[in-house]
């Protein structure tokens, strides 16, 4: 395999934007997974689908409508969870189906699927313009900076909300900031893997990294590395094999997860083997 493809500008743009997206998805994803919001990304992206359909229907730039609809949906659901006792997974289901519902409704009203919609559904990282890339880079830097600034509070909130509140953290406010950040992350990342596969980027590298049994900082570092590796290798591989980048990226992440599981399994087997040997000798 020669690497001349790295000279193509559309590949370069894809790799740069993809790396930025890989980083923010894995960072946001860590908090989402640990708060049992794993499917929140899915719910938000389905809300975004509703938003995009609204944009296509009304002729407003679809990313803006997607953004507004997701943020409003996310804030609404947070409020709903606080004031009623709806559980997290049920709240996420409400969000997911209402987004999809509006989307399907508006698409049928517009007169069926359009090409633009397909790129939102399955991603189109190799089709982005330089402006798109710069926008993705800018938003990602903003998200990373915010997460770095709030990392201690977010960690405490994620670990134990009550204790976080007692230690003087405004948990209500932080929860709202958190869902807005998550919405922005999802909308920004749709270009890479599309609405349907966004959860993969949010969930897979994190659960794989968590399995290594390390502390928080190391787990984050592992997750970000795995996320970046899967995106970069996925984009390059998909070009050579002429496959869809989104599917390739996701399947590489799945392979890493399965590989880690197998490795752990073999390790445990190996250890129990040793123990068996020791006990049978004794």
């Amino acid at each position: 395999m020669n690497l001349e493809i790295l000279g193509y500008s559309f590949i370069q743009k894809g790799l740069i934007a993809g790396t930025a997206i890989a980083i923010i998805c894995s960072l946001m994803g860590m908090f989402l997974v640990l708060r049992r919001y794993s499917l929140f990304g899915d719910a938000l992206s389905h809300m975004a689908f509703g938003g995009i359909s609204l944009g296509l229907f009304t002729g407003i730039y679809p990313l803006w409508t997607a953004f507004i609809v997701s943020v409003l949906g996310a804030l609404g659901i947070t409020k709903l969870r606080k004031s009623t006792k709806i559980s997290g997974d049920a709240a996420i289901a409400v969000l997911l189906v209402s987004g999809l519902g509006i989307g399907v409704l508006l698409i049928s009203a517009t007169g069926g699927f359009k090409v633009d919609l397909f790129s939102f559904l399955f991603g189109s990282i190799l089709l982005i313009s330089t402006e798109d890339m710069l926008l993705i880079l800018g938003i990602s830097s903003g998200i990373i900076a915010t997460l770095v600034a709030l990392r201690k509070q977010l960690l405490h909130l994620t670990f134990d909300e009550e204790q976080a509140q007692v230690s003087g953290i405004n948990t209500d406010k932080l929860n709202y900031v958190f869902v807005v950040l998550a919405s922005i992350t999802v909308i920004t990342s749709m270009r890479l893997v599309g609405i349907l596969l966004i959860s993969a980027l949010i969930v897979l590298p994190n659960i794989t990294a968590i399995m290594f049994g390390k502390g928080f900082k190391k787990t984050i570092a592992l997750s970000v590395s795995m996320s970046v590796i899967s995106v970069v290798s996925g984009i390059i591989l998909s070009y050579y094999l002429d496959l869809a980048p989104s599917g390739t990226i996701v399947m590489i992440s799945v392979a890493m997860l399965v590989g880690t599981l197998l490795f752990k399994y073999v390790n445990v087997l190996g250890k129990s083997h040793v123990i068996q040997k020791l006990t049978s000798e004794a």
Partner: protein
Amino acid sequence: MNVLEVSDVSIKYNGHLAVDKINFNVKEGDLLGIVGPNGAGKTTLFKAIIGLQNHSGKIKLFGYDEADYQPLLPLIGYVSQKVSFEPNFPATVSEVVSMGLIPEKKLRKGAVLLKNCGYSWNLLYKKVGKDSDKVLECLKTAGLESLKDRRIGDLSGGELQRVFIAKALVKDPVLLILDEPVTGVDADAQNKFYTVLRKINTENKITIVWSSHDLEAISKLANRVACMNRKLFFHGEKEEFFSNKELLKTYAESAMQMHMHDHN
């Protein structure tokens, strides 16, 4: 000086009174043991003090009304009875203890209030300087040095309790509120913990409010005792409580009933 004043505090859950017009004060340097059977309202009362529970009546900290004492809350070390966290949570013991550290800005806000009411804050770990050293110091106090790099989810119940105690200490608390901190901890570790408790109370002059079902431990450690079951039945010197046969009998009976309840 009164660190804590509780006046006529009542707390209702769905129309049912869990805490009924309770009054008591905690003086600087006190080690108050709160006893009462399961469901007596101890946890509920603690939550009201730290601002997690609506209530009627008045609560004061260092003489400040609730509206004014918010900046002091971060300086309270609170170990809750139940901590539920994600079992796979990727954090080490020292990372969890570090979560207890309070940012400089919040520390300073609280310190201003303390200074204005003339409280001399005994900085237990503050003088150590660097955050990581403070954390290490608290880990030592709680006997957790050897476990500091372990994943939090891999610890035993007793070890976990010690982690949460270290997390409460690392902030240099002006008041420690411990809700049955050593339930499920083995006798050896309990004794270690009691030694620590006595030390931070006598040497560092930290005021402690502590709920427990272990009357023996309370009789050894506390200087004052409060006995409640929705209402407050007794509050005063330890000696007075333990020489009051009538009171002890009532307490033992209600605790016994409870015990039988547990087994049914």
